[in-house]
């Protein structure tokens, strides 16, 4: 897994700073794995819980391979889509970008939310905004360094840009996956709520990186 990007000046750390970074790493990993385990665990429990109503373990067996991949695939599509648009906008108008994005969000969200059949795609403005912020957070000095190191095009994207924004994108994907997976019935509300909180924690730990 790529190392998260730490914005700002990179300086040496004291031993206390290193210890803090170590524990941040533990929190990050803890949260991510907890979210994944709970996502899968919850799916199982929910389907087992519905055994009485609908009968048979087959339902559980059928639901698990469907619900989770659907959530993950949806998140992947949303994040990739948002990121690609963000890359484009950032390239065309790096400075006016934020306003462009905000306009896009307004234009995109309204009709999409009202038309339910592209629910998933309606989340692209969210991931777009996230991606744009991540791209924007790459210090100009690194772009300069890349330029004098003759890194350009696909090579630069692959070795510099993507590794630097990936932690934020993954945080966004995780968030979206959990949200997309949200079960429809009320008794699962608490479980979904816990999942969301955990995903938020994991996301922020991911985005913050080792500080």
């Amino acid at each position, binding site marked *: 897994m790529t190392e998260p990007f730490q914005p700002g000046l*990179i300086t040496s750390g004291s031993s206390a700073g290193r210890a803090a970074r170590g524990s941040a790493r533990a929190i990050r990993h803890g949260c991510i794995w907890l979210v994944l385990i709970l996502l899968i665990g919850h799916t199982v429990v929910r389907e087992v819980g519905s055994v009485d109503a609908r009968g048979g373990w087959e339902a559980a067996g059928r639901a698990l391979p469907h619900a989770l991949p659907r959530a993950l695939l949806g998140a992947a599509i949303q994040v990739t889509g948002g990121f690609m648009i963000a890359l484009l906008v950032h390239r065309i108008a790096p400075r006016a970008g934020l306003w462009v994005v905000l306009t896009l969000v307004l234009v995109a969200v309204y009709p999409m939310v009202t038309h339910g059949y592209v629910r998933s795609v309606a989340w692209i403005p969210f991931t777009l905004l996230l991606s744009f912020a991540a791209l924007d957070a790459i210090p100009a000095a690194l772009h*300069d*360094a890349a330029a004098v190191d003759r890194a350009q095009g696909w090579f630069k994207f692959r070795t510099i840009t993507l*590794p630097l924004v990936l932690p934020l994108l993954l945080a966004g994907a995780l968030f979206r996956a959990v949200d997309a997976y949200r079960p429809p019935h009320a008794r699962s509300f608490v479980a979904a709520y816990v999942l969301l909180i955990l995903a938020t924690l994991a996301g922020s730990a991911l985005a913050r990186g080792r500080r």
Partner: protein
Amino acid sequence: MNPIEHRIELRDVTKRFGDFTAIAPLDLQVIQGEFIALLGPAGAGKTTILRIIAGLEKPTSGTIHLDGFDVTSMPAPRRDVAMAFESPALYPHLTVERNLALPMRAQHIPRNAIERRVSEVIDRLRLGPVRRRKPWRLSTSECRRVSLGRAMVRDAKCVLFDEPLVHFDGEEREHMRRELRAIHAELRATTVLSTRDPLDAISTADRIVVVNQGRVLQSDTPQAIYDRPADLFVARYLGAQAMSFLSASHADGIARLTCCNLAIPVDDRGAQPVDAARITLGIRPEHVRIDPRGVPATAVVTNSTPNGVVDLRLGDVPIRASAQPGRQLQNGEIVPIRLDSAGCRWFDATSGKALPWRTRTEST
């Protein structure tokens, strides 16, 4: 076509940021294999000059030629100019090794050649123990060394170092100066370094270009700049043995020091000051001797330190002299001094420019 004389050539380059003029019309030539130092205070425009050469900044006007080709509108990656930043702009997600390898990977150099070269650079810059660390686990000086390494790892047309020595202290700084010199002697890459420290410039470069307020004040060998500064700014800025300045007036081939009424005969052919009553004598401590035979001026010792330089007061003006070996001076002691005529430099105090005068007699 003309033969290529200059590897880097800036012609009439200016750069403005809004109302602020960072670079006034500036010309700069660097020949193939030369090592020059841009020397000047903070805000003199050194970094901007380097960024313009690298292609990270577009000049407001003027042209840049590399090897005789106009590259003014060529983007940085195509110019083949390597640069080490002061910031030092390491890739935070890559280890020391991979940071160093990146410029070569970008050029699709075979993997084993990259590994060999990266190992060489790591040994040179004493980065062995930290080669697998990421930037956040490096000390400031290690970060600086990685950034220098990244600039010289590939065989670029020219190499730019922005304040390469600023974060090193004492012995390490000495070592890095020798390393920069040694690396240049080995690779013969055309190198431009920027620094605020005259000693860095003197001990590394073949040629020093003194810059202030976006202008080149003087461009010459370190010795020539030390011996014959072009104006008061350069005279003040350059030299570990800082010049002392004494104001004087001038009439009929005689310069008269204001502080002690000492008359110094000068050969004033060549140039006249704007205002004859306002000239300045600049003299380095090694040319001010405490000498019983050279009587005319007497000075009071204000501070005697073991570094070979004595602070004196001549009338009410401070002046620094070289200490006499084997004689400990007391503060407040009155000593006779002698000014070496060979070391006297005259300046027009109104314009700050050097006057090409010779001082006539041996002892004043």
